[in-house]
């Protein structure tokens, strides 16, 4: 299976790449390059730039008001995007809430939410995981009880990335007890300013606070914020997980970081260290394989529509490679990576050895990628059952 890339596709990608490189602010690029934490303004400011050219909701069809790229163009765009040290845009609105609202919501919901998402006017977060339901979403217990024209939500979500910045949350909540745990789950849009919502940040190993706990105490959500059919939310949630998986290879980003590591190693005179070089080359070859697998899956899905469970392979290998790279980078800098300067990581002070300093925090922070988005264990369960047919 090979992908057909036309001259027009190439021209589009080249132009988009040049545009991105020209627009990315130097200070933002340096923050990303040095693993300095981003502020909400860093992120939304850059998304503003993207949205101005309709490059923010990059995967959206023309019907949704997006750029209407073909899968090939989308792939080429992501490759160009990954090659520059730009922040990974917040996906919760554009890749998750938006597509579900478009696919399963009503016209009023589409008109109300989609333009704001596309144009970066609302910041979204994802209310899936709960303390008792991480990778096992079917056992979630946050409840939404119907009272007149409202749902009253009680319970707790956890690992909610950027909930402290968010205007809206899309959440899976339990509206009924079904015979199977997957039944009775509904998909609700919740305004984060509603009374009764408490957001508590959770610091991760590296000192950052991108995750949160979100507590709901008698939170009243209008029934018009229910997406699709009550009790059918599990299906919408699964729709998203498959979507997410495909975009989680992170190949383009890993390709950029590989190049940065090679640059750093060259500057340190380490390119004659055969042990280091062999580690680097092994990862490079694994990344080549990942890129080719991604292309093959894209070619296969070009005709057939959405990617199948095979995309779990990309998530598994993509996250493993990202971790291997961050470990190589840590080992390359060695003791130089040991100073931990909160002021530097918060972007409040220049680092004295800025290139090296973020390596430790980045390695610790990246432990998350094999856990979130459906842990790699869950991906292997999906593959063994749905692709290999073992049960």
């Amino acid at each position, binding site marked *: 299976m*090979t992908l057909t890339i036309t001259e027009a596709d190439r021209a589009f990608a080249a132009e988009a790449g040049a545009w991105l490189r020209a627009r990315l602010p130097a200070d933002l690029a340096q923050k990303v390059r040095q693993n300095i934490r981003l502020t909400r303004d860093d992120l939304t400011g850059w998304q503003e730039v993207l949205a101005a050219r309709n490059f923010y909701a990059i995967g959206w069809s023309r019907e949704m008001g997006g750029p209407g790229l073909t899968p090939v163009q989308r792939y080429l765009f992501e490759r160009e995007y990954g090659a520059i040290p730009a922040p990974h845009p917040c996906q919760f609105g554009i890749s998750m809430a938006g597509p579900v609202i478009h696919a399963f919501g009503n016209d009023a919901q589409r008109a109300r939410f989609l333009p704001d998402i596309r144009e970066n006017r609302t910041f979204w977060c994802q209310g899936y995981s709960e303390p008792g339901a991480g990778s096992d979403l079917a056992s979630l217990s946050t409840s939404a009880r119907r009272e007149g024209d409202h749902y009253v939500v009680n319970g707790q979500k956890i690992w909610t990335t950027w909930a402290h910045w968010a205007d809206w949350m899309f959440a899976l909540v339990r509206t009924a007890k079904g015979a199977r745990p997957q039944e009775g789950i509904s998909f609700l849009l919740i305004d984060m300013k509603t009374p009764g919502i408490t957001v508590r940040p959770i610091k991760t190993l590296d000192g950052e606070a991108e995750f949160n706990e979100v507590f709901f105490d008698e939170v009243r959500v209008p029934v018009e914020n229910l997406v699709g059919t009550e009790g059918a939310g599990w299906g919408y949630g699964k729709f998203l997980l498959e979507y997410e998986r495909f975009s989680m290879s992170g190949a383009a980003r890993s390709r950029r970081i590989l190049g940065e590591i090679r640059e750093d190693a060259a500057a340190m005179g380490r390119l004659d260290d055969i042990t280091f*070089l*062999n580690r680097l*080359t*092994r990862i*490079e*070859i*694994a990344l*080549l*394989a*990942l890129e*080719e*697998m991604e*292309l*093959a899956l894209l070619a296969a899905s070009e005709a057939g529509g959405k990617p199948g469970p095979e995309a779990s*392979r990309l998530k*598994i*290998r993509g996250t493993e490679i990202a971790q291997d790279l961050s470990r190589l980078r840590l080992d390359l800098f060695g003791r130089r990576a040991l100073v931990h300067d909160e002021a530097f990581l918060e972007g409040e002070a220049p680092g004295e050895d800025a290139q090296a300093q973020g390596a430790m925090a980045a390695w610790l922070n990246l432990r998350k990628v094999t856990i979130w988005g459906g842990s790699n*264990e869950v991906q*292997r*369960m999906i*593959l*063994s*059952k749905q*692709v*290999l*047919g*073992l*049960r």
Partner: protein
Amino acid sequence: MAAMMEKSDLEVLARSVARFADEAKGTDPLPGLAELGLIGAGLSEAQGGAEAGAQGEAAIATEIGRAGLQATPALECVLVPLLLAGTDLGTQVSAGAARVAVSGNLLDARPDHAGLPFTAFGPEGATQVLMLDGSGALRLAPLPGPARQMIDGRAIWTVPPVDAGTVIAGGAEALPLALARALSAAAADATGAMGALYEMTLAYMRERRQFGQALGSFQTIQFRMVDLSIALEEARALSGAAARALDAQDPRAAQLAHAAWVQAVTSGGLIAREAVQLHGGIGMTEESATAPLVKRLTVDEQVFGGVEAHLGRYRAA
């Protein structure tokens, strides 16, 4: 653009090779390969080939590897025909009328063999060997004696260090591209072998019961099979990419060939080891259908060189 087969043509080719390979198991496959035009099929029509290109060569090698035939298509169908293209001997080789082996130092692209004996590989019955002499020239030398066998039944020779024989004009220049195509074919061969091993193992995990349940219902088995399936896909992805890049005369082609081989060795080694372990005692035996493929992968790693050697050649390419 060099010769590049259409996808549909490649599928037709693969199916016809697969049919042949299934029938040729346990026999000397070279006469049949020659008859079907599969020796030197990647050459241009002007050189007597079928314009199958590197992708066609890969399709041929994959099916031969899958069946575990007593042939090394990377050498017999690709490297030797490419290096002898346009010579009378080359014509004979493609017709199945002559058999030529290849030296290990040529596969390494290393002229120096330091006056030591070296190994040669190729079809049983070969009487000459393509080698690099001390000056780096490509030379056709007589083989000193009858072949010995490797553990998978394929032929090997130990050749004394002579700089005798005929120099092949232009051979050294043709070598880098020919070696990249041979390596791409070797990677394809390995993907064929490991694909068959994977399928056999998956089928066995479905059917074999232990402790009262199918082995495939144990979660550790499931996860290991998933990892094998990923390793297989990685090898296929890079093998395919290398062949396409060669046909497209992509400047990265030689690098991709080394990458494909590194991945083939990595994935193939894992799949071979796990195929034996997951089959249990049966997998240790000659009688298992897995045995020839496990040996083939193990032998080819040493014939074409292991991971570390090719990591270096990847960087140098």
